[in-house]
């Protein structure tokens, strides 16, 4: 569950590549290959590229010193099994709430400023079982909205947040420490066991998390201000 994007230098390289791909994408737009899009969509695409470049520069600029210490900062695979039986304590709950709310609702600049505290919080909950982590989120209305918000955010936030979850799901699946808890997890988060089991068995981690976001209902109608 650690915030791998704040630790892995290869993620920074990925951002540069993303920006480069953004430029390629914008040039494709300029060539008019996507003729069906509106003028605003075209310009929106170009703007997104500029935004990616700015954010890439900001993130790389802020993290360059870390690159020289790549080895110690690169995440080491969690050595021991994460225990599903161990419940999430108050402190860990606060850390999860802090990470999700910050990534979901704070501005990009504030997230940049909170980098070190996010890193520390991520490190403190890295040993939690992924089902326990997801359970904490999907049992609280604000965090349910939060994880959905992260999915809508810019790529470097959403990809890296979900990459952390997917990595720990994968690790526990390899240790045969996941599927046997599916029924209990499904019951806790109020989703049909049969909807998520095939996804987990098939190693479709991203689809599994997306299904949780889409299928677990929110208590209030989120579209109240549809006007």
């Amino acid at each position: 569950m650690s915030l791998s994007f704040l630790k892995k230098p290869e993620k920074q390289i990925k951002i540069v590549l993303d920006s480069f791909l953004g430029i390629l994408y914008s040039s494709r737009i300029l060539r008019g290959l996507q003729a069906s899009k509106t003028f605003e969509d075209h310009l929106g695409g170009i703007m997104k590229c500029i935004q990616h470049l700015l954010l890439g520069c900001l993130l790389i600029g802020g993290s360059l010193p870390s690159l020289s210490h790549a080895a110690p900062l690169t995440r080491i695979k969690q050595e021991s099994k994460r225990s599903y039986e161990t419940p999430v304590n108050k402190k860990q709950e606060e850390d999860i709430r802090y990470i999700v709310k910050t990534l979901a609702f704070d501005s990009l600049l504030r997230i940049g400023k909170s980098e070190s505290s996010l890193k520390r919080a991520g490190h403190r909950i890295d040993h939690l079982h992924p089902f326990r982590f997801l359970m904490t989120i999907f049992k609280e209305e604000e965090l349910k909205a939060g994880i959905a918000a992260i999915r809508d955010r810019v790529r470097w936030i959403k990809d890296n947040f979900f990459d952390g979850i997917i990595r720990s799901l994968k690790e526990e699946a390899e240790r045969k420490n996941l599927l046997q808890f599916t029924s209990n997890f499904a019951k806790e988060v109020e989703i049909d066991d049969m909807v998520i089991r095939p996804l987990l068995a098939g190693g479709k981690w991203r689809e599994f998390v997306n299904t949780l976001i889409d299928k677990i209902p929110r208590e209030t109608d989120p579209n109240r201000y549809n006007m």
Partner: protein
Amino acid sequence: MGCFFLSSPLLAKQWIKTYALETYAGPEIYEMRRSKEGGTRQSGTLYGFRIGYDHIHRYKFYWGIDALWAKGFLEGKTEEHRVKSLFTDMNLEARLGYTFQSKGWRCASFTPYTGGGYFWENNDYQNPSPLTVHFKNRFSYIPLGFLSQIFIYPNWSLGMNLKLRYLLEGQQHVTHDPEHSRLIQHYEEHFQYRIELPITYFFCWKKYALALGLIPFYEYRPYGHRANFPFDFLETKLKLYGTTLKCLYLF
């Protein structure tokens, strides 16, 4: 200095040597079209006033401040109901840049700039809207853009101004909901842009150097969807078509 810009290009050159400061004020009128992800469409005309001050001179640092206030009713409908709201735009911006200007060729100038700004956008729903909530959108931003100008005649100039707004931090406060207390919604901060095509006529009156500018513009303000608690912010797009009439005093 007299009425040096009335007829000769040479006098236009004189103009760029003489005046560095300009203060302006004038009415701004625009049609706003607001659309929301859920299907709501609203439109209406906003009437307002723009005022500002520019220090702009050949091969010198440029700085300026600009303020806008505008208000008007938007009407339209959601998928099921008719809606009406009173919309208010308020904006304050400070700019810093540098002016490149040709001495000879039609005194063409190009002023790239950046700076800082703050926007207040109020959308207060009224009857017969199903919910008479007030949306108060606030955001700070960095403007990135340029001003440009070329004299087609000694006393007439054309230009093109482009501005991008990079939103730093935006949030919408929702108040007056009969069932909920004040709450804050966050949205995805997208680039906004504004394109202006100013046409300016320079003249003198008594001993004062003045100008009148007509500035048609198009502005686009998108705010992206973001899940929020307890209610989501739905993607909202504002498209503005309008014009500003500027009276400039040069000194």
